[in-house]
């Protein structure tokens, strides 16, 4: 990975690569590990927060992830992407927690895009007036609730694919599933999420049809109404 120099930092040292941070951390540099944490804290926290639906719990679990990562850093294969490895640890940690809590669905989390510095403030579109922004906030709450009603494995693939923008093979590596299974789960998860949103009133009535079960054919992606 090439060195990165951020704007306004020409006079400073270039930003270290992930590999350099790993090497530095393994060499005992606290600063290197701190930079590593700061680089990946937001994506790891975001994924876990969407999975468990509770921000403060997500922070605790995210801390756990990085502590485990530090302790297992000597076993990290530097040929792999560090982000995928961290997401893998996050995947295991989060699923362990959900199993221990015996939760399939998670409560609605409060999300706010304004007036709260613990959440990202995203730029608003030019055409959005106050009413549209309020509707958007309501939609995001609806998305959160709908996502919380999905089974954990559906939630996870949706978050990894659409929030983190990971490729199928990366999601397969993180979840330990075959790539074909990841595609099937993504397909089903999307349909299920759409259904949940439609039932919550975020789409016109009659707009979203419950999927009819189809016969399984070898080698094709099939959809079903229930969980695999």
């Amino acid at each position, binding site marked *: 990975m090439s060195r990165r120099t951020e704007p306004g930092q020409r006079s400073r040292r270039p930003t270290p690569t992930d590999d350099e941070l790993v090497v530095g951390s393994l060499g005992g540099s*606290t600063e290197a*590990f*701190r930079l590593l*944490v*700061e680089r990946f804290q*937001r994506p790891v*926290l*975001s994924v876990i*927060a969407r999975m468990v639906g509770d*921000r403060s719990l997500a*922070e*605790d679990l*995210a*801390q*756990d992830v*990085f*502590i*485990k990562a*530090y*302790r297992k850093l000597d076993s990290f294969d530097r040929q792999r992407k560090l982000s995928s490895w961290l997401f893998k640890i996050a995947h295991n940690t989060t699923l362990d927690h959900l199993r221990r*809590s015996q*939760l*399939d*669905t*998670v*409560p*609605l989390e409060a*999300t*706010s895009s304004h007036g709260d*510095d*613990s*959440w990202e*403030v995203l730029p608003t579109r030019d055409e959005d007036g106050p009413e549209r922004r309020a*509707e*958007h906030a309501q*939609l*995001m709450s609806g*998305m*959160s*609730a709908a996502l919380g009603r999905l*089974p954990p494995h559906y939630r996870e693939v*949706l978050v990894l*694919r*659409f929030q983190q*923008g990971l490729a199928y093979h990366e999601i397969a590596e993180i979840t330990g599933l075959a790539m074909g299974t990841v595609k099937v789960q993504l397909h089903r998860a*999307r*349909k299920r999420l*759409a259904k949940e949103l*439609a039932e*919550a*009133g*975020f*789409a016109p*009535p009659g*707009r*979203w*049809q*419950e999927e009819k079960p189809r016969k399984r054919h070898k080698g094709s992606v099939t959809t079903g*109404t229930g*969980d695999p």
Partner: protein
Amino acid sequence: MTVHDDKRHDDGQRSESLRLGEGAQWDNRLRTSHCRRVDSRLERWLAAEDADDTAEAEGALAVLFSAWPNPLPRTDFAERVLIGAGLRPLPAVYPWWSRAVIAVCLLLAGLATAYVLPLVFNLVQLVAPSQLAGGVVQTFVGLLSRFDELLAIWRIGARMVAPSVLIATSPQVVLMLLALTASSVFIFRGLNLLLSPPRSSGYVQAH
């Protein structure tokens, strides 16, 4: 919308087919019978799902997710990770300067005690123990019949009051007594806080 598998009860709860876990919250506020105005990004995604256009649906859903704000970690998140990993010591609950204050108070308390004790002894010597004991015994024996014996205690007490007031009103003694009081309060609170178990500070011990 056609529901095939789910049987909806009047109170809005799903059937067992959707595996509700313990503590799951069912948010009935969102289940309205009226349609909201559909967000254009949501509309685009739903249209793509309707058309079974996977590429378009994924693109549209990615746009929808990108409009969803993510939680930001706390500013001391990395620091707490370093402490949990053992790379930084746990911060002292009370900073060094508070301990310095307690040490100075201990010193002042020692000095104040050394200064005030001789004054206390002088005060005590004004009324010899034997005299005080004698007056109390006499008073106790003749308490009911001899009223004037009660005055012996009163006279001893009166003898003590005047010099005490005289000593107590001197500026040095007043200052020292105040310093002693303040020092005692600080020492007591400081020791109490130092010796009590630390409060939870949110540091995670990885399991």
